């Protein structure tokens, strides 16, 4: 860990302004990802801005009939909220498959969205990694790739985004609200929040330097059956090999988003038109253009079978 300075911001706008003042500054929320990365010197921020006391830890109804989730609401509180459990079951279920009880108590909504990849080479500072050190190369390509992306990857990076929560938010069409360094607020759909790696895998989201997430907004409830399946080698406390979040309506229509397959939660709205025709029909367009490695090609079959199983459960 490199020495760093620390401050507690008083308002969201002040936090954003402070972050823009020091190059490389980071917000710290629960710290469950950031501190680990700092200990390994994967992240070396010279300055930390603590955002825990900005009052962004409430969940409120919106005029549109949805929910505004403060950026600092813990994963535990979010998953336990009665409205979330009733109207956004997919989100509650996805959250509860993540990490462990202790971690979820600390982990925040914004921190979860911004958690970094679990690519093992990203974590080994002796190895080349374009995401950790732009231009150094990618050790994963040609290496151990079982966990890594099958779609949307690039020659520069084949990492996946590890969040479960983000998969649910993508299926639910959430909106991310932010405040920028100049104090102005903006909002963008979750679909535009995470980026594909391209030539710049170190740039992971649409956030500008210093931009602070203030809330995540859910539109009004979708109804339907909401099922989240996380497939993994051990029963708990493991990242997904593949996860499938689906919202299924009685008329056979529905939505589906995937985790564990790409650099961002993966959803192709056009593929959802095939939902009434079953998993096989959906997965074709959903994973069109997938370029798996020999080690992770199984994820394509796994996505299809998991979705098929979800459809059976939803019918039953």
């Amino acid at each position, binding site marked *: 860990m*490199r020495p760093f300075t620390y401050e507690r911001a008083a308002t969201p706008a002040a936090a954003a302004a402070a972050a823009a003042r020091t190059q490389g500054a980071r917000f710290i929320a629960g710290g469950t990802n950031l501190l680990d990365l700092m200990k390994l010197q994967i992240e070396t921020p010279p300055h930390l801005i603590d955002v825990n006391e900005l009052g962004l830890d409430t969940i409120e109804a919106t005029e549109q009939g949805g929910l505004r989730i403060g950026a600092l609401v813990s994963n535990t509180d979010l998953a336990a909220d009665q409205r979330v459990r009733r109207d956004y079951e997919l989100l509650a279920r996805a959250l509860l498959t993540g990490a462990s009880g202790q971690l979820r108590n600390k982990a925040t909504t914004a921190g979860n969205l911004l958690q970094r990849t679990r690519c*093992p080479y990203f974590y*080994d500072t002796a190895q080349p990694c374009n995401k950790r050190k732009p231009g150094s190369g990618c050790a994963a390509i040609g290496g151990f790739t079982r966990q890594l992306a099958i779609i949307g990857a690039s020659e520069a990076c084949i990492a996946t985004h590890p969040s479960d929560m983000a998969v649910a938010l993508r299926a639910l069409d959430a909106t991310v609200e932010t405040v920028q360094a100049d104090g102005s607020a903006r909002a963008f759909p979750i679909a535009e929040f995470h980026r594909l790696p391209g030539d710049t895998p170190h740039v992971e989201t649409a956030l500008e330097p210093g931009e602070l997430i203030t809330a995540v907004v859910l539109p009004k409830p979708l109804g339907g059956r909401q099922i989240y399946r996380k497939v993994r080698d*051990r029963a708990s406390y493991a990242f997904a090999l593949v996860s499938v979040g689906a919202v299924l309506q009685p008329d056979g229509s529905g939505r589906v988003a995937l985790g564990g397959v790409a650099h961002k939660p993966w959803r192709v709205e056009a593929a959802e038109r095939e939902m009434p025709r079953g*998993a096989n029909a959906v997965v074709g367009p959903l994973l069109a253009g997938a370029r798996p490695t020999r080690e992770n090609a*199984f994820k394509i079959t*796994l996505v299809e*079978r998991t979705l098929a199983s979800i459809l059976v*459960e939803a019918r039953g």
Partner: protein
Amino acid sequence: MKFDSPAAANPIDRLKVIGRPLDRIDGPLKTTGTAPYAYERHDIVADPAYGHVIGATIAKGRITAMDLSAAERAPGVLAVVTAQNAGALTKGNYNTAHLLGGPAIQHYHQAVALVVAESFEQARAAAHLVRIDYKAEPGSFDLYTAKGAATAPEPTDLTGPIDTHIGDFPRAYAQAAVRLDETYTTPDQSHAMMEPHATLARWEGDRLTVWTSNQMVAWSTGELATTLGLPPEKVRLISPYIGGGFGSKLFLRADVVLAALGARAAGRPVKVALQRPLIANNTTHRPATIQRIRLGAERDGTISAIGHESWSGDLEGGGPETAVGQTRLLYAGANRMTSMRLAVLDLPEGNAMRAPGEAPGLMALEIAMDEMAEKLGIDPVEFRIRNDTQVDPEHPERPFSARPFAQCLRLGAERFGWDRRNARPGQIRDGRWLIGLGMAAGFRNNLLAKSGARVRLDSRGIVTVETDMTDIGTGSYTIIAQTAAEMMGVPMDQVQVVLGDSSFPVSAGSGGQWGAASSTAGVYAACMKLREEVARKMSFNSADAEFVDGEVRVGNRSAKLRAAAAEGDLVAEDSMEYGDIAEKMQQSTFAGHFVEVAVDSATGESRIRRMLAVCAAGRILNPKSARSQVIGAMTMGAGAALMEELAVDTKRGFFVNHDLAGYEVPVHADIPHQEVVFLDETDPMSTPLKAKGVGELGICGVGAAVANAIYNATGARVRDYPITLDKHLDRLPEIA
């Protein structure tokens, strides 16, 4: 004392204390966090300096340049130790690679420097400032590629013979009515114990004391002296509490050597814990194996030919994984062959992990037995019992000292409800889950080693046992106290046990499941001597004296035990050694493992529902601690079956998933109800306590029992461990 004839009736047989399921006497220390582990010896040194280990970042090659200057100037830094400035170091006998590498690099994360600073954080930060340039060389990192060039290793005490041939295997196999020829693989595995390797080192003049976490105190004291070029009597090693080892702490490792060197360089005590991300590549691991098994049988299920070949790899000068050992002893069969071949790999060094040899060997053999039973149309339990043997099949003149193998299997089958198993796989469903039952035999030899102890009686009647034996979480403290309590006729709270100090009599240490039986036998020997001293002091005839309820009784005369020490402590020291009983008779331990699994019919995820082990391991000294050993080992076996694998990057030459996020071991949610049954058995050929080891038996066979249950659930056989979903996904039923 020498043990060279079967144990007769002796004071242990009273079973007033021995054989009781007593709580571990170190339990409160563990549960309150007050057991003094090596890294937490604030009681010894209040302000040690901290060392941070730097591991090599290439797998093979040389260091071409090192720049320590920035690190040396960093805040709080006291010293930076490297092979260049450490002085002459000699490689010990038990490690293959140097514990402080450079300029030559033998494996990834081989230690190349230690940064010592006032605080842990300063040492860690400064370590990032050390600049090292390497010249990498190509290496051999893939067992599958290197297999072709594998050769027969030199036999050692640990390996036994490399090849064995009995009868005419090729002919019998060719002529067998039913044949099986399959290849199985097991991956490299990491011990993944909770406590990392950790050491506090302090020099007083030319004398060195290390507080560390080590299973084998005498071995490692000697190895430390050898490595540093010190006379052995100048080195003291203290290892009273160990947060798990599973074989990774049998030997001297880099933490000890570097802490000692760091303390010398900094001129003050230094402590070092190997950072978790270094452990997988810096220390030892269980080597991967490729195993070919051929079985030939008559139609009635009699095995006529049994062949087992194993390939593994290690650094130049290392040894093989002895995966064929159990196949020499477990089943009858007139025509047999086994062989081991060793490939040179430039991966980190392989060595013992819980039940080395048998654990991976049975993972293969016991799938093969399941496959053969199916080919024969015979129940897997019956098939194994039909090929039971009461003698060493390679040397029929050597009987087993005790072999209730068939009983373990029969009782297990009955308790588990084995008759409910459908022999046709893929038939039973519970919603979306496919349900299967599987079983396998467990087998592990009983090894015994010379073990000594010192016992002291004081005027309060307290009996104190001192031995360099270790407790790696197994319950050594407790069974040693039970032994002394039984022998001296005192209650448990009158016994004190002090372990893990090289200034104490040399014990067997903890490894190879030899610790419990060997160390208690040593305590027995010392107590016999103390009983004689007590009797002499009281002018009793020692042969007639009974030690009971804190008294010594002969006929109708009795005296308080403590009275014998009224004028001063009585001290006795002895050790137990073994004659040639083990050569004349084969001593082994046996188990039947039974497992029920559920496999998600869509995703192929396998989850265990029930586990049962029926074990025969001689007298069980403490059923509670023995059960804990077995359920822990079953958990490890479940991990081996379902998830544990060090992923090899065959291009860059290292284990990629080198932390506990990447190397998955079972969590609570993976482990269901576990039942353990011990047969009521004594083995008078083992030790006076008639006990054998059990800590490794518990893992032996578990992996195959899980594998066989998965097959029974799905009908898709997987022969490559771990059985992750990708290995059978494309053979699972259509989703309807």
